[in-house]
């Protein structure tokens, strides 16, 4: 398995452009230095909040799946049109929050590179995170998308700014 993994990494890296390590990183993480040890306990709260968001996303996903199943079996909605309905709802959501649509890591990098004056305020990021949870639950419930990768929502991305504004 290890040999297969290494060969797969070599093949995919060479096919996706450049050898391993020569390409730019997909996610451009800004430099960070721990200001003080007082921030370490905050990481616990950050992890707990991430867990809460994940749990809420899981529940939303189950609710969407149950709704899709009910619409299919009880409401008589044709099953092949369920992904299209989910896509329609996701597109409607994207009219308000275009970041819910997939752009690789572009959205991540946009938020990371935005800085203090990049236009992504805390309230907007909260809304984007909620919209992402809703869109993902819709797509998963309707079997539109069969992948589940949960890195970290943007819900907590402005945590430092919120605390900084309170002189924390």
């Amino acid at each position, binding site marked *: 398995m290890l040999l297969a993994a290494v060969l797969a990494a070599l093949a*995919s890296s060479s096919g996706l452009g450049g050898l391993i390590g020569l390409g730019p990183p997909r996610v451009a993480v800004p430099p960070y230095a721990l200001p003080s040890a007082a921030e370490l306990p905050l990481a616990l709260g950050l992890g707990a909040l991430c867990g809460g968001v994940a749990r809420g996303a899981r529940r939303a996903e189950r609710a969407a799946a149950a709704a899709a199943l009910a619409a299919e079996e009880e409401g008589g909605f044709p099953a092949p049109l369920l992904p299209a309905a989910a896509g329609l709802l996701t597109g409607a959501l994207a009219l308000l929050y275009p*970041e819910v649509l997939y752009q690789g890591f572009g959205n991540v990098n946009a938020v990371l590179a935005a800085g203090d004056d990049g236009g992504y305020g805390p309230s907007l990021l909260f809304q984007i995170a909620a919209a992402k949870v809703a869109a993902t639950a819709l797509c998963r419930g309707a079997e539109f998308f069969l*992948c589940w990768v949960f890195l970290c929502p943007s819900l907590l991305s402005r945590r430092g700014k919120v605390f900084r504004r309170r002189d924390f």
Partner: protein
Amino acid sequence: MQTTTTKPLRSRWSSPAVSPSPGSIRISAPLPPRASRRSHRRLPAPTRLASVRALDGLPDSSKLPTISSSSDDDDDDDDARGDENDADGGDSSNSSEVAVLLAACGVGIATGLGVVLLNDAVDAVRALAWSGAPLEATDWGRWARSLPLEAALPLVLLPPTAAGLAVGALRAAAGGSLDDSQASSGSGIKLKAPLLRAAAAALSLGKLVEGSFFFLGRGIFPSPLGEKTHPSCLDFSLSDLSRSLARSLSRSLSLSLSLSLALSTHTHTHQAAEPPWVPRARPSTSASPSRGGPPPPSSPKAGRGSPSPFWRRARGPASPRASARRCRGRSSRSRRCSCGGGRAGGRAPRTPPRASPSRRCCSPRCWRRWPRPRGSAA
């Protein structure tokens, strides 16, 4: 059998009078004394490479005309004996190892090429859907927000809907579901499902439907106050090389693991469609658990504490809709598992289950069925 006539090798410590006969050649190394071995380093290279003798017609292996290889290690005697022993039964094991290595190489290269193909397909679909979008993905949000509603409707609303239609068509072609656990039992569907699923993933990704949270946010930790961020700068101890290598390795490992899991799941699904210890019907009243057979697994302690077997969990549904199919009988007032296997969150129930003969367990961690076997209290 390769017939080879070998020339007898002469040395101070080997028996010179061995007449080779046609037979299989074999490398052997009954070893000389240490000083003699050093002297044989001065032999010509073809002679030093390996000692060759004919197998047939040799009465005693201790009298073989051998010349040691160019090793000074004292454990050459063991190697020599090992070579002699491996010559009989080692061929099959070597061939199986070579086959495993070749299979691993094939799986790895195929996985890497699959990743590349999927990425290219996503790029192609994206270029087809949005030709006027900015090339830089980080400007997508601002660009989409700046669009008027008339222009945003076909550019933002139409592609996900069209992708949904395409995915629905693929789903219908796959027999109703792209999920292996829900697909019909035909072998053709089982074989087609991964390809159709890959096509659906490329379509959904290319049409910019974000099914996953590729949204790391502004880092887990904020940047220092007032400091300008540099997107291309990484302030971590890991270098770019190790970071990229770790990323590629983790991706490939996850793909390989998922592939092996899928293979094992497929195998177990076909080999053991129903485990013998899962009760399908209520056992008779005269049957005692202590008289033989496997103990009932659904005793209260076992039901709460012991996890379900790996292969049983691997058969579990991969999509939330399959979980929703199981949870149809779930009460909205109580989230406790009806079969006593614990809550969906893992907590043990306090109330006895309200049994229904046709009701299945609603907890995704519990795979027991109703009716439960006799003797297992809730």
